């Protein structure tokens, strides 16, 4: 059972940061994961009074407050228009609406959970986290970092001329993914993120021609490219076994889901 000695709804990020320097302190997200832990928390720090629960859209980026619920992201018109609905697709399979109304974007990203659909999705986008002391760092760098005592304030998604897709495989609806795959094609090339390996999501970047940056690419050519990239991903993305699936099955899924996501993002029919 989760035990909490003291609860503080902070009035500023500075207050949250200071309280969080103690090892026994914990910043609260939506608590859907934390409440299942068997641990004692000295001070539970609640950021929900700081107005960090909205998505702000500017000319060139989206700024997502750490306390924004997954449901708010899922139903955000601007973010979904920019990602071809990939954000919605990455979230809608997570348990249920009630759960997604509680779970927060900041909590999901900060936890850097192996099973995270959210981290898988954002890693494929040109995204950043804004830390109270650490400033803006790329999602890629953050995903590899160990947890420290900083405060995750915002998640930033840069707008590009891009096409995205998200696909996941689950043993049962609303369960954790067995494997998750997010793809984003932009001006430079491809960003592919594979999650639930079952380790933390990993990113594969490739500067290359795609139907997004090379207008005259034929369907046949992209199909061949997608095939090659999928094979490459299956070779270099490290997978493992757990109660949900074996390493071999996951590697097979890396190839299949990568190809499907690439074809979908490239604006072409599923080639399988």
């Amino acid at each position, binding site marked *: 059972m989760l035990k909490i000695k003291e609860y503080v709804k902070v009035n500023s990020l500075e207050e949250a940061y200071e309280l969080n320097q103690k090892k026994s302190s914990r910043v609260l997200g939506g608590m859907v994961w934390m*409440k299942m832990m068997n641990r004692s928390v000295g001070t539970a720090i609640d950021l929900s009074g700081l107005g960090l629960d909205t998505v702000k859209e500017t000319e060139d980026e989206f700024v997502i407050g750490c306390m924004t619920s997954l449901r708010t992201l899922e139903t955000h018109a601007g973010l979904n228009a920019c990602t071809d609905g990939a954000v919605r697709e990455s979230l809608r399979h997570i348990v*249920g609406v*009630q*759960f997604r109304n509680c779970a927060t974007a900041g909590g999901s990203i900060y936890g850097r959970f192996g099973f995270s659909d959210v981290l898988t999705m954002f890693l494929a986008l040109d995204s950043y986290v804004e830390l109270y002391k650490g400033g803006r760092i790329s999602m890629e760098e953050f995903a590899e970092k160990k947890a420290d005592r900083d405060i995750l304030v915002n998640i930033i998604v840069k707008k590009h001329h891009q096409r995205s897709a998200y696909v996941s495989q689950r043993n049962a609806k609303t369960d954790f993914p067995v494997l998750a795959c997010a793809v984003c094609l932009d001006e430079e090339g491809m960003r592919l993120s594979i999650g639930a390996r079952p380790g933390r999501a990993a990113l594969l970047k490739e500067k290359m021609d795609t139907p997004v940056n090379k207008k005259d690419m034929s369907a046949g050519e992209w199909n061949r490219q997608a095939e090659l990239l999928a094979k490459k991903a299956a070779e270099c993305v490290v997978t493992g076994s757990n109660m949900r699936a074996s390493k071999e099955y996951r590697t097979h899924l890396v190839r299949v889901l990568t190809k499907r996501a690439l074809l979908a993002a490239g604006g072409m029919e599923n080639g399988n």
Partner: protein
Amino acid sequence: MEIKFILNGKKMQVDAAPDLLLLDLLREKGCYSVKRGCETANCGLCTVLMDKKPVLSCSMLAVRADGHEIVTLEGMQREAEEFGSFLADQGAEQCGFCNPGFIMNVFAMLEEMKEPTEEEIGEYLAGNLCRCSGFMGQTRSILAFLKYKKEQREGGSDR
């Protein structure tokens, strides 16, 4: 910590421990429709409305209800009776244990969507588990309820 919130239309003022969960507070206050069906934030039985949005009361600290409005099935008896008759007509449920959380989420869905399709219903209610049924009766009863409500709005129901 002292908190103030509105429970089913009534002002409440309670002293809540920092780790008291909303679910336990609500049951303490006599809202026995709110149940803990799992320990993993998965079953949806503990669903209540917080400022009209469905949330899992099993995962929410009671202190976080401070300043908010909470509605449980106890606060929606009339609506529940009306919809409940549609569930009964379809023989949708057997044990009924999951019913309160399910009904609260149906109301939340209807607050967001006027005429959800069968697919949208399935997606919205995916977080409400029923271990007796295959959800078909529930889906039929919602579709019948929507039809009845639409006819009522258009003034042509004889029910």
